[in-house]
């Protein structure tokens, strides 16, 4: 318990996080490119043409990782919300609010690419089916969280309100995931995360996994960038920001 609490407090310290995140940035960027470039190449050039959907299935390589991230980021935010409410950890608030625009952008990407995929395959850009509707609600949740945060002058109050809204909204995540099982949707069921073997050819699956991992690393990378900028602003009056700012001023 002792080492855990020590780690917990250190991790919650803004100056420590700022430094460590800064050191991780080049490694994360490298790892991202290492996953992203082969994934993109494999997805566009190596993966065979789908026997039903022709070349249009390649939209999957943008759509599915974006959709995965739209849900993953929300769950990460909900975990932060719980930590922030229970232990009053300031860094959890910062991670929560810095994740929201990233999650919103991936949700938007999933919706638009889904629509561009739907037109040639289903004959329509949009239907009010359970999967599409619940994903649209997710976008509104992200936007609502960002709007609510900006509605308060005082950041502590804003953070608490946002943490509560985030926790309430997490009910939407299982609804999105199981929508294709619970309701008769136009959207297809899962192909990868099934209990038995995935129902997708391995040459189609590998780039999907690579790009999925690339998006995951990308989230951590841009989250670190955002958190560092936010910490500088929040800690403006502290000694470590002063030292950093004056060093920067000399250049």
């Amino acid at each position: 318990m002792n080492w855990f609490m020590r780690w917990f407090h250190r991790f919650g310290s803004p100056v420590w996080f700022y430094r460590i995140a800064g050191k991780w940035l080049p490694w994360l960027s490298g790892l991202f490119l290492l996953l992203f470039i082969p994934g993109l190449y494999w997805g566009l050039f190596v993966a065979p043409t789908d026997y039903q959907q022709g070349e249009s299935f390649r939209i999957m390589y943008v759509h599915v990782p974006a959709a995965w991230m739209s849900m993953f980021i929300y769950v990460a935010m909900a975990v932060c919300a719980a930590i922030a409410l229970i232990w009053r950890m300031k860094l959890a608030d910062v991670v929560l609010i810095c994740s929201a625009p990233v999650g919103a952008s991936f949700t938007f990407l999933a919706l638009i690419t889904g629509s561009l995929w739907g037109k040639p395959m289903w004959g329509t850009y949009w239907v009010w089916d359970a999967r599409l509707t619940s994903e649209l609600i997710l976008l509104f949740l992200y936007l609502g969280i960002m709007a609510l945060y900006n509605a308060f002058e005082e950041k502590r109050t804003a953070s608490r309100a946002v943490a509560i809204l985030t926790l309430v909204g997490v009910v939407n995540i299982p609804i999105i995931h199981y929508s294709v099982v619970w309701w008769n949707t136009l959207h297809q069921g899962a192909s990868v995360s099934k209990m038995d073997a995935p129902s997708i050819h391995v040459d189609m699956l590998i780039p999907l996994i690579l790009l999925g991992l690339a998006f995951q690393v990308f989230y951590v990378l841009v989250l670190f960038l955002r958190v560092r900028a936010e910490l500088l602003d929040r800690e403006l009056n502290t000694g470590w920001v002063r030292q950093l700012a004056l060093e920067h001023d000399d250049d």
Partner: protein
Amino acid sequence: MMTEFLQMGGYALYVWPSFALGMLVLLYNVAVPLLTHRAALRRAADFHAGRRTNGEQIQ
């Protein structure tokens, strides 16, 4: 060969905008925090050097 690839089996109109938007979203997510970080650092430098943000010295 190249044109065949670009035509995407007749689905070019749907495939390429998807990939283009994907790239835009990635670029947006990198560019915005880099710019905010630079602005925050400049703000902090101005604040601690006793300057206003427009660079003029506080009397």
